């Protein structure tokens, strides 16, 4: 496979980069240098999410000629292994040994919970390109923590609102049996007021859904809502199709996206998801990005990629606004808050809690003429949507 070598490459590359960075921590040149630490999940079953973000960051830095904000930039990438304990050690190395100015990462909320404090306590600025838990959106919001993705609840709410608007009377909910699964159902139900036929919690990492699918068929709901990221989602989608249930609309969050579609393929066509962007987004900048990303990696970019790309554009805008003075963190934070950059998803602003205010869409899986699969925007569900926690944040 074409991408096969990337797995080993990153791990090796990350180690080499770290060692190299440590060796070269010699006196800095006269001009200020910008150092960006990147911490993503780059191994294990979820590695393809981190790889999307990493490839987008590399592309963004390359497009800027290696000078983010006009300053010579060094990117240090490490793998959090999707282990909170490992991520703390790795992020401390980024802060203390590499002395990075920015940390971009991570993909998963549980890793963010672990690295948030070490980074925000330091002088570095943390930008999450994906994880957007409620915990840092309200009371615990922080001036040097920014999110370029979404607040998690918003994505589940897209599907709830759609189900409500569409007039579905009976909806069947199914999520994994852990905190995020419960939050997902709560997010859906915050917008959906019809009857919930069943709240089905399946064990985390369920691979065979045949028993669940039989229950769905017996319940005959108007629609199914699910949150089933990663490998289980791939299985669910394939088995849903094999069980002949495709006449029941399949609404999902983080279940059908560009990271899972290469495995789900035709089985996912027609299924719905919620997102802040899709590869067919009608915007010249976004179209160029999709073409460049595909040329560089052979993969269709997902939201993981554009959110990471936007993180670099954001840093670029802020460093430029302060005239390249990387060390003046207060000025940089103020400049970042303005979000004065061209986002790949068009309109983008920061709320008082540094989480985005953006449009959110219903997306649907489609097969492209070239045989690859992508999500496509079907309907705008929320305009300039804000998360419900911002009011608890003391920042202005």
């Amino acid at each position: 496979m074409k991408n096969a070598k990337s797995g080993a490459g990153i791990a090796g590359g990350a180690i080499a980069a770290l060692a190299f960075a440590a060796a070269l921590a010699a006196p800095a040149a006269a001009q200020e240098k910008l150092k960006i630490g990147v911490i993503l999940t780059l191994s294990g079953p979820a590695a393809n999410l981190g790889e999307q973000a990493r490839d987008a960051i590399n592309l963004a830095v390359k497009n800027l000629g290696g000078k983010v904000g006009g300053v010579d930039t060094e990117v240090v990438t490490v793998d959090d292994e999707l282990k909170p304990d490992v991520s703390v050690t790795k992020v401390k190395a980024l802060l203390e040994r590499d002395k990075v100015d920015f940390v971009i990462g991570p993909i998963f909320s549980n890793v963010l919970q672990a690295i948030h404090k070490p980074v925000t306590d330091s002088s570095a600025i943390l930008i999450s390109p994906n994880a957007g838990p409620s915990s840092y959106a309200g009371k615990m919001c922080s001036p040097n923590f920014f999110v370029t993705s979404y607040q998690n609840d918003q994505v589940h709410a897209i599907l709830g609102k759609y189900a409500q608007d569409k007039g579905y009377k009976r909806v069947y909910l199914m999520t994994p049996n852990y905190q995020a699964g419960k939050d997902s159902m709560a997010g859906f139900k915050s917008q959906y007021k019809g009857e919930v036929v069943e709240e089905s919690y399946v064990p985390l990492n369920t691979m065979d859904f045949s028993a669940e699918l039989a229950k769905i068929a017996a319940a005959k709901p108007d629609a199914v809502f699910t949150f089933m990221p990663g490998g289980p989602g791939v299985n669910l989608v394939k088995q849903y199709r094999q069980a002949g249930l495709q006449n029941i609309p399949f609404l999902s969050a983080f279940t059908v996206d560009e990271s899972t579609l290469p495995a789900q393929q035709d089985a996912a066509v027609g299924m719905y998801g919620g997102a802040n962007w899709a590869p067919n987004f009608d915007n010249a900048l976004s179209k160029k990005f999709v073409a460049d990303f595909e040329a560089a990696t052979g993969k269709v970019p997902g939201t993981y990629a554009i959110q990471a790309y936007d993180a670099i554009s954001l840093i670029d805008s802020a460093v430029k606004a302060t005239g390249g003075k990387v060390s003046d963190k207060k000025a940089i934070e103020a400049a970042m808050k303005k979000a004065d950059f061209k986002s790949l998803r068009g309109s983008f602003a920061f709320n008082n809690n540094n989480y985005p205010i953006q449009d959110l869409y219903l997306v649907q899986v489609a097969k492209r003429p070239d045989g690859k699969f992508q999500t496509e925007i079907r309907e705008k569900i929320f305009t300039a949507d804000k998360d419900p926690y911002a009011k608890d944040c003391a920042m202005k």
Partner: protein
Amino acid sequence: MSLTLFLVQTLNGLQFGILLFLIAAGLTLVFGVMDFINLAHGVQYMVGAYLAAWFTALTGDFFLGLLLALPTALLFGLLLEWLVFRHLYGRDHLDQVLATFGVILFLNEAVKVAWGSSPLSVPIPDAFSGSVRMMDGLLYPVWRLVVIGSGFAIAIGLALLVSRTRLGMLVRAGAVNAPMVSALGVDIGRLFMIVFGFGAMLAGFAGAMVAPILSVEPGMGDNILILAFVVIVIGGIGSIRGAFAAALLVGLVDTLGRSFGPQMLRLMLDPSAASQTGRALAPMLIYILMAAVLIVRPAGLFPAQR
């Protein structure tokens, strides 16, 4: 709950049980005959699935892929035995657990290096791509029936092999008293190697058969390994018959418990409490079953005779 739903769920449980049996059969032989704890058995299931996916993609035909994947899985098992496991037979169980756990970590990353981290998918072979209408609005893929059928065929074949052939006799004798078998002039090292390779191939076969219905991805064998251990403990270590009975039992209890448990509880509790309790109880059911079996029969349902 309707009768049809119950029958469909029974079929689902049966299929899950058969899958568990294919994995547990090799595990119980290796553990019973060689007294060797092989945590890497689940990885061999994963390797079987990857090989099937790879050969299917190369040849364009699932059965040709399967035909190539099986001997490759066998060779791979033998290679592992020769490289790693052979040196662990004399060591205690902790050493074996540590070393085979290392093999899990190594191979999970190795398949990523070889095939990438994204899950692979294998199409259902055309001849069996149809489905049967089981109940209103639900289709049952024929391929799942093929999995059940092939599992039963292998169970019968294994039973005959173990009870009727010379090799089976040696395996049974080895499970009872390996040093004595060796003293009688049987090359016990070679016997172990055959048993091991065969177990690896069975696990690989299970992986290949489920590849069209489950996604093939790194770490796919890790969860199922725990269940396979539950199965061999319930069934009695070293016993194929026990593994078969226990696998079906675990498959049925798990599937039916998860499907109907909350509904049964609803008869006694109010709906939200029932859903909460059911959610907590369902994943525990098979472990409760294991504890119950061990209280009544500490050596498992059908212990190998000693």
